[in-house]
Each structure stands twice: as structure tokens, then as C-alpha cells.
């Protein structure tokens, strides 16, 4: 059973196509993210689901029923806005009761429901506070509570963590995931931050220029990207342009621009007869030292970037390329200026045709 289904949805503004033939469905109770750079059309897509825009083509179904004819205030999808849009002239309790009042719930029930939802988001007893008295994280939870009290079919979240500082953002990621488990409601989350999408989601759709490039579980996107855009956008990668010299056993021999030659596996869909490619190698796929198989390059250590478990060695090859190599907690013991060999296994380097989607 799908809670939300979009069928070939297209939206144009004048001659600009913001959302281009997008289809997807979200299974009940799952956490689904749409990940893409700003301007890729993800906000427009979400506004169409909420009813603030009308698609030019295609259909949007909630619990199997088309909602295109429903006004925004008649759809049972609730939305957490980018800047939360909590009503500053009302108390926390009034904010949460707002939707219940609009729905015409009995006065006697409203108080109980407000208290219950505040308990569930872990903020009991704040209903008489003003919005301005809350911290950033608390506001976040109130914005979610305000929607969840209405028991929506789908909860839309429009980059709600964007305005928070880094520490709080990391914390809220985990908390959002827990809230989603607790409410067992379908969450549709849009963001430009790949780590938010990867950490929280059951499924992620990567969106670029109005289209979905790939939909899948985070691990799948990370390990088996179907396009250069996905490989570059999801997670860190070394990225080099080059030309395919020849193919052998499904492995491409690529001459990189500016020298060096590497082995790479063509990504899903193959290369066709495309010779111009981009090669992607994740820093953690590269290790220090020579390897028996795969690819080995030599260079010197340009600089060491210490960042705890995310530490990196920057290696400059003989032809002047800078390569990021993972160096967990800086244990490799190399120094700046040292001569060094690095290698990776052939299947950990992926190549995609340049310019192709």
C-alpha cells in the first residue's frame, strides 16, 4: 500500500520546466527523502503535493485517491515549513490546537490531544509558552507536533533543519528519525544536504534539473550510483575527467586528462560508445601502499587534513593531480613531503559517460 504516489508530474513556469515527468511512490510508514541542489525543483514538487501549486501534467494520489481537485486546506498532507511558520501571535498550545479547531473538533477533546502530542514529542507542559521563548530544537518539535496532532496521511518536511546550527542539526537528524518511528507516519523530507538524507531515510530520490536521477535506499545510492551526478552529489568522491582507451573484461582503461592511466568499472547502464568519461573514486576506497591488483599511483603527500574519523591525506601525483585519501584518525603516520604509493581495487572506481545524464 502506498501513502503517496506521483504519476508523471510536470510543472512549468513560463518556458522553464521546474519539475519534469517525475513519478514515484512511497510505501506506508516509511521515511522518504528527495535530495537535490537548490533550484532542482524539489520545493515545487513538495508545494504541488501540499496543493499550493497545480501540476501541468500528471497526477498526485494520496492513499490511492487523486487529490488534484482538492484545495490545500482539504488535503490530509501536513507540512513542516522551511522556517517552520509557527504563528508568533499564538501560544504553543494555540499553535497545536489550530488545526484541530479548523477541523471542528469538540472543545473538550482538544486540550487532551494537545497534551498527548506534546508528551510524544518530549515537551510536556509547554503549551502556555510563547513561540519566542522556545529554543531552535523545541520550535522544530512543536512544528512537527502541530502537524502530527492531525494524524496526516503524509508529513512533508521542507528542509526544516536548514536554519539550525551544526551541532543541533546533527542531533535533530537522529531525533527526527526517532519521531518518525514513533508516529509510524510516512515522512517526505526534502533537503540539499546529502548527509541528512542518507542518515534518516529508508529511500532517497536524487533530483537534478527537474528530474529524478535515481531512487533507492541510501546504501544503494552510495555504492551503486547510476549516474555521474549521483556519484558526485552523494558522498565525497575524487572526480577526474578522461578518455576510455580500451575495454577488457568489462573494465575500462581510462587515460585521465593531464596524464595518469587508471582502471575503472562502467556504472549501471554501461558507457555505450561514449569515450569521454568521468571517473569517481571515494577516498575510503583508496589505501596507502601498493596493491597486487587494481590500480596503483605514486605521488607525494601534499598536506594532512585532520578531522577525527574523517581525516584525509592529500596526495599530489607526478602529473599534478590532488587526490583525497581517507586516513582514519590519522593512523597512517605519513608526513608532508613523503613519497607515497596509493592503490584501489578496480571495482571501486566507477566511470560514467561525460555529459550524459
Amino acid at each position: 500500500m502506498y501513502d503517496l504516489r506521483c504519476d508523471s508530474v510536470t510543472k512549468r513556469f513560463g518556458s522553464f520546466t521546474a519539475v519534469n515527468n517525475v513519478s514515484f511512490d512511497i510505501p506506508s510508514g516509511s521515511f522518504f527523502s528527495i535530495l537535490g541542489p537548490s533550484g532542482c525543483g524539489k520545493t515545487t514538487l513538495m508545494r504541488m503535493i501540499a496543493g499550493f501549486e497545480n501540476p501541468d501534467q500528471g497526477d498526485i494520489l494520496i492513499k490511492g485517491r487523486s487529490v488534484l481537485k482538492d484545495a490545500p486546506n482539504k488535503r490530509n498532507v501536513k507540512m513542516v515549513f522551511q522556517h517552520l511558520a509557527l504563528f508568533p501571535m499564538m501560544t504553543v498550545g494555540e499553535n497545536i490546537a489550530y488545526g484541530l479547531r479548523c477541523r471542528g473538533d469538540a472543545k473538550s477533546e482538544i486540550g487532551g490531544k494537545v497534551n498527548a502530542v506534546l508528551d510524544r514529542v518530549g515537551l510536556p507542559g509547554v503549551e502556555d509558552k510563547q513561540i519566542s521563548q522556545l529554543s531552535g530544537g523545541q520550535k522544530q518539535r512543536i512544528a512537527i507536533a502541530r502537524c502530527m496532532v492531525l494524524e496526516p496521511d503524509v508529513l512533508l518536511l521542507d528542509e526544516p533543519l536548514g536554519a539550525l546550527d551544526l551541532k543541533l542539526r546533527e542531533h535533530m537528524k537522529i531525533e527526527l528519525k526517532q519521531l518518525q518511528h514513533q508516529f509510524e507516519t510516512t515522512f517526505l523530507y526534502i533537503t540539499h544536504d546529502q548527509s541528512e538524507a542518507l542518515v534518516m531515510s529508508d529511500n532517497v530520490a536524487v533530483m537534478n534539473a527537474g528530474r529524478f536521477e535515481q531512487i533507492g535506499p541510501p546504501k544503494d545510492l552510495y555504492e551503486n550510483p547510476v549516474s555521474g551526478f549521483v556519484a558526485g552529489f552523494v558522498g565525497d568522491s575524487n572526480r577526474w575527467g578522461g578518455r576510455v582507451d580500451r575495454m577488457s573484461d568489462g573494465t575500462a582503461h581510462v587515460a585521465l586528462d593531464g596524464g595518469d592511466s587508471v582502471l575503472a568499472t562502467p556504472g549501471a547502464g554501461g558507457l555505450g560508445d561514449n569515450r569521454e568519461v568521468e571517473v569517481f573514486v571515494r577516498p575510503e576506497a583508496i589505501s596507502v601502499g601498493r596493491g597486487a591488483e587494481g590500480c596503483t599511483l605514486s605521488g607525494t603527500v601534499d598536506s594532512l587534513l585532520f578531522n577525527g574519523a574523517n581525516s584525509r591525506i592529500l596526495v599530489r601525483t607526478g602529473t599534478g593531480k590532488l587526490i583525497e585519501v581517507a586516513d582514519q584518525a590519522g593512523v597512517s603516520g605519513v608526513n608532508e613531503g613523503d613519497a607515497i604509493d596509493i592503490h584501489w581495487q578496480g571495482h571501486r572506481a566507477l566511470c560514467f559517460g561525460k555529459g550524459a545524464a
Partner: protein
Amino acid sequence: MAQANKSPFLTFVYRSYVTIFFLYLVAPLLAAGVFAFNDSLFPALPWQGFTLDWFFNDTEPKLGMFHDERLLRGLKNSVYIGVIVSALAVMAGTCNAFLFERKQFPFKNALYVLMVVPLVIPGVILGISLLVFASMIANGIDAATGVNVKWLRPGIPLIVLGQFSFLTTITSLVIAARLQKFDIALEEAALNLGASRSRVLTTVTLPFLFPALFSAFVVSFLVSFENFNTTLMLVGSDAPLTITMYDRVVKVGSTPVLNAVSVFLMIASGSLALLSVLIQRKKD
């Protein structure tokens, strides 16, 4: 702060200038105020002792303002006109604010200029033009049907229309400035939570605008209350307070009862203005 190499002498000169300026500002107000409390038949020196007779005494020749029938009637008319015209101007101003902040339509910029124009038309001209126009219509109706439309002749309805014509510009600008700061996502959030359009307006948008609506009302009321130029041309038998006072100054000459009225006006309008500032502060 933003001064290059402060010279104490220049700073002193500057400070003195500003002080003198503020003395210039308050001097006539003080002069008008002080003599309301002088126990004399003329608002002039010498000082004859403190009295409140010019406010509360009920017998001639020192008839206090609160027993002066004509002044009281003028005050009543002024309040009556002020409340009606301010309410109308706030309503029209709210519509204009929404029109210019939310809607797109042809010739928007030109129409916006037209909205601002009443502020730069001299009040006397607004008065005579409305007088002429209303009379033309009234004469036309009279000639065609023999009915004399009373409210198109000088009197309170025409004063209300005359003041409304420029107060609406002020209220529109005040309310539009606040509406511009409104985050449209709040309305979308309310819609998303299931509110109808009219409910969104009454529970989210209007409460947000309230401080601006209130201060637009107060400003309109005060400007209407003290308006002279436009009103002078449109006044009929029911004169508001400023016109009554002016008649008194011209015909009777100055008497301390006018000082008393001045004090009353200063206190009343001062506290109204202060109230509006406080409300504005609290809400922000």
C-alpha cells in the same frame, strides 16, 4: 561615535545648537500651556496665581472649557468625525495594502503613484475641489429631480469625505509597510492545517497586522482631529473643535480658555500617540 577627531569646542557648539533647537520646539507649547493656569482674564503676564478655573469654573467671565457649550460641541464633533473617518480610512487602507502588496495588475506602478499623490496636494485644494465637485452633483440632482441632497452640502459628511481622501494614503502606507514584513508561509501553514481562506485572514493575517491597524487608526484620528485646511472649506453648521477655536481667536481674541483647550489637546493627543508607540513596541 562617527566623528573625526573630536574637538571639545565643536562638540559643545553642536550640543548647544541642538539644545536651542529643542527649546524653540517647546517654547510656544509651554507658553500656550502655562497661561491656562493663570488666574487672569488675559493669557499674558503678570502672573496672578495658579487656578484651574479655565477648565472647571462654570460662570462668566471665567467660563471654563468644560462648561463652554460651543467648545464642548466642537470637541464632540471632532471626536465623532475622527472616529468615523479613521475607521473608514483604516478599512480602505487595509484593502489598498493587500491590493499593492499581494496582487499583480496592469499599471500597478502608475496607480501606486496615484495612491501617494493625495499627500502632496495642499489640503486647501482637496477641500475646495471636493466642495465644488459635491456641489456640482448636488445641483445636478436638484435640477433633475428637485431633491436637495443635504449630505453633499458643507457639513460633517463632507468633512469626513475630505479628510478620508488624504488619510487613506497615510493608513495605506502604514499598513502596507507591516504587510510587507509578513511571511507568506504563515498563511500557507494555516491553509495546510485545514483553515479556510477567511479563517486564515481572521486568525493569522489580521492579528499580525493589528499593531499597524491600531497605529494607523491613532494617526488618522490625531491628524483628523487637528486638521484645519481641508475642514475649513467643507465646514457647515456643526464645526469641529479646531474651527471653533479659530473662530474664537479671530473674533474674540485670545482668552485663557483657549490655553486650557490647548493643554487638554496636548495631553490627550500626547497620551494617544504614546499608547500607539507602546502597542507597537509590545507586539514587535
